């Protein structure tokens, strides 16, 4: 009797295991959930954009970041787009850490509840491989509304393109820069040593006239947000000196991480020292917090994307209008000798791109929020989604959005840099516009610019392993050696899981970009 019951129990368990496995791996019936191959997608009309298009009755579900920046311009312009075309754009905004997971789960399980995404273009390695995203190459090249040639070459050919195909439409252009109070600081920092010295000089002084001591430096260091990019900006000049193609994350011959050497140890030390001149709870501040502190006059220096430049213009929230300068991310007078893992002084051989002995390596971190379309969405939804993204990116809309701090969008089109009227319209003086746009252009044109990591599992390398290790380092849980070892082990584990050769090829390809 007992054995019979055991048999029944075993059979039930086996059925459950089988159903669990088959439920999670519908490999035998992928047809209904597999995204339609891009090659079979009907070619859209040459100008599938807002004007003259009728998408009445079509609703596009769009997933993005709940900033509140990024979602703001999409939500604000969606009703205008609906009035133009009839298409309803439903913007679903979630936390930064959730975007990747929601998007990839939605696509991989075939749920396809989202028709479009505005997300990190550095994740394309994970999304284009399985064919989740619509190939937009033919659309953008033939669409006068999106004016593809006006998009900056870096954003067009690197951010939007993967494996030679266009998958995203840029809505934002991102570089790290250093902001400084131009009314307090005559000579902005050129090196990270300068940065610490300037921060020390102003730390503890009242910088905004409220009688309270303020801070020398404000850099968002909260775990689980967007803080892990700063350490690469600090380390950039130490890790990369021979030009963009050299790469700053991995050795381009062995795929071994470059973050376990004297250079990265120095970067970690410098990064931690900035906390000596920051708010007491800096370890728990996100970029929204540090931007608020800077624009209310509480910080002498900050590192950020282009957002502080436009947020500082808003009279409703800013007390530092016309008191903000921007400068290319500071560099170093030393760099890494990759053969020995030691630091060497910069000279014409070791730092061929150095300016006045300083090796700058501005970091194109993140790259800018970009719109992509679900390849498995219905054709009319794809068309409407494309039309909306093109509408958002079109110079008429984007040239206004990039001047507004609340959007989170920064300049990325040639016309954004050349047309100064829009900047004047929001209260930026010619001098301030020259300074702000000049800092972005200087970064963009630097031959030693550091490209963000852009290979499969980029999110795991950066947001999971690097972010946790650096947060443990600044919290004092790990010393520099332990931090570097943890990053190296974690990155090697991911590389080996995916396949070292495949990852190396992907990394080499990502560095071969032409600007």
């Amino acid at each position, binding site marked *: 009797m007992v054995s019979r019951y055991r048999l029944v129990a075993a059979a039930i368990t086996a059925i459950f295991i089988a159903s669990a496995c088959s439920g999670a791996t*519908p490999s035998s019936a992928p047809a209904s959930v597999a995204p339609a191959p891009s090659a079979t997608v009907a070619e859209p009309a040459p100008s599938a954009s807002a004007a003259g298009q009728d998408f009445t009755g079509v609703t596009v579900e769009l997933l993005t970041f709940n900033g509140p920046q990024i979602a703001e311009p999409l939500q604000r312009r969606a009703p205008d787009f609906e009035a133009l075309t009839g298409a309803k754009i439903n913007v679903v905004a979630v936390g930064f850490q959730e975007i990747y997971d929601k998007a990839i789960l939605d696509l991989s399980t075939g749920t396809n509840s989202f028709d479009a995404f505005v997300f990190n273009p550095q994740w394309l390695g994970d999304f284009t491989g399985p064919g989740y995203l619509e190939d937009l190459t033919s659309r953008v090249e033939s669409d006068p509304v999106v004016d593809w040639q006006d998009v900056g070459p870096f954003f067009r050919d690197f951010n939007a393109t993967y494996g030679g195909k266009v998958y995203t439409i840029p809505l934002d252009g991102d570089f790290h820069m250093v902001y400084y109070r131009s009314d307090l600081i005559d000579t902005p920092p050129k090196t990270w040593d300068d940065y610490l010295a300037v921060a020390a000089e102003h730390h503890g002084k009242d910088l905004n006239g409220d009688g309270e001591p303020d801070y020398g430096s404000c850099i968002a260091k909260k775990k689980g947000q967007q803080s892990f990019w700063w350490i690469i900006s600090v380390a950039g000049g130490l890790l990369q000196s021979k030009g963009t193609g050299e790469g700053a994350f991995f050795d381009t011959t062995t795929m071994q991480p470059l973050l376990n050497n004297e250079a990265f140890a120095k970067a970690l030390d410098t990064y931690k020292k900035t906390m000596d001149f920051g708010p*007491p709870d800096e370890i728990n501040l996100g970029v929204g917090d540090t931007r608020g502190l800077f624009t209310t006059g509480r910080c002498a220096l900050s590192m950020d994307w282009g957002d502080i430049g436009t947020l500082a213009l808003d009279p409703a929230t800013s007390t530092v209008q016309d008191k903000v300068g921007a400068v290319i991310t500071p560099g170093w007078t030393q760099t890494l000798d990759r053969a020995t893992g030691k630091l060497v002084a910069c000279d014409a051989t070791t730092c061929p791109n150095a300016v006045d002995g300083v090796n700058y390596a501005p970091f194109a971190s993140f790259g800018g929020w970009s719109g992509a379309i679900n390849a498995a969405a219905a054709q009319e939804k794809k068309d409407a989604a494309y039309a909306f993204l093109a509408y958002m990116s079109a110079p008429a809309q984007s040239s206004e959005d990039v001047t507004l701090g609340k959007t989170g969008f920064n300049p990325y089109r040639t016309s954004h840099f050349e047309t100064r009227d829009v900047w004047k319209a929001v209260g930026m003086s010619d001098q301030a516009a020259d300074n702000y746009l000049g800092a972005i252009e200087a970064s963009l044109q630097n031959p030693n610019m550091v490209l963000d990591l852009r290979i499969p599992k980029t999110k795991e390398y950066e947001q999971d392993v690097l972010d946790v290790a650096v947060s443990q380092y600044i919290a*004092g849980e790990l010393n520099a050696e332990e931090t570097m070892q943890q990053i190296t082990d974690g990155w090697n584990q991911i590389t080996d*899981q995916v396949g070292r050769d495949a990852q190396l090829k992907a990394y080499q390809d990502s560095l071969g970009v032409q600007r």
Partner: protein
Amino acid sequence: MASSGRPLDLDPRGVTNPDVTRGPRLHRRAILSLGGGWRSDAAARWVFIWPTVVVILFLSIFPLVASLTLAFSELVFARGRIEVDFVGLQNFQILLFGTERTHLLGLLKPPTPLGWVIFGLGLTVILRSLVGSLTGGHVRPLGALLRIAGAVLAAGLLWLVVQTLFSEGGRPGSLVVTMIYVFAGIVVQFLLGLGLALLAVQPLAGRRFFRIVFMLPLTITPIGVGYMFRMMTDTGKGPLEPIFGLLGMGQYTWVTDPWAARIAVIIGDTWQWTPFVFIVLLAALEGLDQEVREAAFVDGASHRQSFWHITVPAILPVSTTIVLIRLIEGFKIVDMPNILTGGGPGTATQSLTLQAYLDWRTLNLGRSAAIAYILLFLVTVIATGYVAWWRRRIRPV
């Protein structure tokens, strides 16, 4: 109405009667009985027990089996589907011996002299308890084996605590941090709950009002409590900023110091769960036979003697149950550290559940399930050990 001819048998032992264990024959008989009348006990078992069994299988056993499968797997996102690749013990290997070891177990360093003393004392207690349990009566071989395994596990956990908390340069991982939350939280919550219950049972003015007030934290969602404490521990901008300022703590921050952050989590958790302890102990205290206490006072007992020799023994069964419930619940703490500190600074306030949640959120479902099973094992062993320990001491007279 025809029936099997027997009265409805409610004795659990009846489940093993021959009719029930005959399988197909039972099925036929049950159907016949159904045709003959619903009062048949065999039919009742089919009607009442099997739906329950099916529900339990789907809601409890299936997730358990599915998550066990996941614990030995890795998810791979492929074209239009998710592949579940079997990876054996890899997830456990990474957690216990690989790149996640310091995250889970902490940074282990040789104990300080104090650490050795604590380990020695703890080990003595464990060995005495083990010897007592093995020699206290008839013990089956399997029972002896399980007790020895439990003692080894307890000694291992003690060694882990000593190496991470009482060592030079050691650091607790999420496992030890969880145990800190559980044991420190239970002690504080029990003492506060008992104190409040003893106060609320007194015939004081306004005690009804305070009973309701003491209960309020229990009605708030844990996420809400997390956000509330996040604001309250913000010394620079929070609602308690003036008080922190007066105390000279305006520049102090709870979130940058690992122990301050852990204490903040324990305070928040205590605030939320003390009312649960309070209300159960209050009920127990109100159910006490006052005549016994009055008789003790007549015999010259002091209030302290009355408390230790009458009240405490009377509420002991309830107290052990509360502690058991809080023990099991406490191991699952996730909202407070997640909202209050995000698990930081670094990973200093991460509990096991939060670590599993973060792995799950980053789509590392295999590792998340492995952590969940480690937690399940730990809770089962500790709760079973706790119950067995008390069972040996509270025997019906």
